[in-house]
């Protein structure tokens, strides 16, 4: 349960989000044009950017939650992986998801390693475990990021444009995984991919003109889409199911 009260967020003197009041109780997909503030909203929830206002996570203000507890309740998956270290392998990277559960200065436990192994098998990327992260394709990178998020075992998972760099086949694989995760996690999906959003079938938050609107049903009508995006839609092209 995320409650956002009077959230305002500016970047370089430009206001991105203005006085947002939202309550996210369940799965939700966040849509909006480029630069409308979708990612910014997600990043404020994870305390990655500065903001004014209050965000409550299960009733506690995120300003009073330490980073370790944050990591146990929220996981954010970026659209693209930023990596400086070019040596890290898929297995080592996925194991890092266990960091918030790790005890003190000790090594990752056998349990952590088992969870990592099972997650890699579940996502069918065990064959990549020795590969370095920098050698992966975009699709493999996205799967690796999801694997890391799964080992983290947080209640909420935020996907930031998971299919943005993927071909149709990989998009479909990722989409199916995201849908499957709805049974175990609260899934917040940020996307431009309308097919994906309609397939995932969560409530929609649309961000326009620094403000948010919640659509609980009947979002995907041609009139709605035309009004919000300002272009004509015939029909949605790729079907995920």
């Amino acid at each position: 349960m995320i409650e956002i009260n009077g959230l305002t967020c500016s970047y370089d003197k430009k206001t991105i989000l203005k006085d947002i009041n939202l309550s996210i109780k369940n799965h939700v997909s966040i849509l909006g044009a480029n630069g409308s503030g979708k990612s910014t909203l997600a990043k404020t929830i994870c305390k990655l950017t500065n903001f004014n206002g209050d965000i409550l996570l299960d009733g506690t203000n995120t300003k009073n939650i330490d980073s370790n507890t944050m990591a146990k309740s929220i996981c954010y998956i970026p659209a693209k992986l930023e990596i400086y270290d070019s040596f890290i392998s898929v297995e080592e990277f996925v194991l890092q998801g266990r960091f918030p559960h790790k005890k003190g200065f000790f090594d990752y436990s056998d349990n952590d390693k088992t969870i990592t192994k099972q997650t890699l098998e579940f996502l069918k990327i065990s064959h990549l475990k020795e590969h370095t992260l920098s050698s992966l394709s975009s699709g493999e990178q996205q799967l690796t990021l999801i694997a890391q998020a799964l080992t983290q075992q947080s209640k909420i998972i935020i996907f930031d444009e998971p299919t943005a760099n993927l071909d149709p086949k990989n998009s479909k694989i990722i989409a199916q995984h995201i849908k499957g995760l709805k049974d175990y996690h609260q899934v917040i999906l940020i996307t431009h991919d309308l097919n994906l959003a309609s397939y995932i079938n969560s409530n929609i938050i649309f961000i326009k003109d620094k403000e948010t609107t919640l659509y609980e049903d009947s979002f995907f009508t041609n009139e709605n889409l035309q009004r919000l995006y300002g272009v004509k839609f015939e029909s949605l092209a790729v079907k995920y199911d």
Partner: protein
Amino acid sequence: MIRFIVWFLLFAVLLISPFLGAVPLHVEDILNPTHINNAIFFDIRLPRVLFAFFAGAILSLSGLLFQTLFRNALMTPYTLGISSGAVLGAGIAIKLGLSTFVFGIAAISVFGFIGALFTVFLLIYLARFLKSSQQESLLLLGIALSLFYTSALMIVFYLGDTMQNDMLIRFTMGSLSIIGWQNPVVLGIISFLLLIILYMYRFELQLLSISESGAKLKGVDTKKVTLKLLIISSLGIGTLVSISGPIGFIGLIVPHMVAKLYPSTVDKRILKTALFGGFFLVFCDTIARILQTQSELPIGIITALIGGPFFIYLIITKASK
């Protein structure tokens, strides 16, 4: 195989290093307690080799730490002006004629530490005005600070008398000429501390070496950890520089060599970097002692002669990526 050869050669240099220098030493003289060479070996050569070893370890570990925390191959205490800050601090202490000890800590070391720490805080403060994509600007800030400190040191020179200036000039060249066991022991303790603390934070460093936001999202209190580690490494650099003067480029070269030898994540390279750095500086110091002409070549000159071209190489390979 290459790894074995490299480590073997470096270790061999460490073993024969105490026997090389201006005065050739023979084993029977060394073992004779009344012979002058016994004193040369145990009070000058041996402490110096150990001093060089620990100095190399501190410089390399700090280099590895800075490169990891800033995720930039060119970031070291030396290139960011932190060494220069320590030099200025220590220089001022020399000018003021402070040779007092407080709880066994030399006043010069305290000034060196303050100089290093002040520079770290100044850089952190200034970095707030930069965007995260402007990492290179931080390097330029470091260079600007170095130039500023050098000028400030010139003022110290200008005000000093001839004897003080001679001391200062030799100090700024970087030298490992020490006598007795106090300095190696102090540096030994500090390098162990630095090694243990970096090891304790190895998984945080592994996360930070991927990306800062990533580390934060996995539960690392990035600001706190970064600050803590920077302060501890400033303590090491400040103390070292106040004894030896600035020894450049070791922190730049060694972590890269170790990464080439062992392409693995940073947590697995901490101990190796410390050892390799120790061996490598002993190796450089041995060259300095063998090459000596009228008087001994300062170590800082040797490391800069090797490190300068290496720095250029790194910038070029980085730019071509």
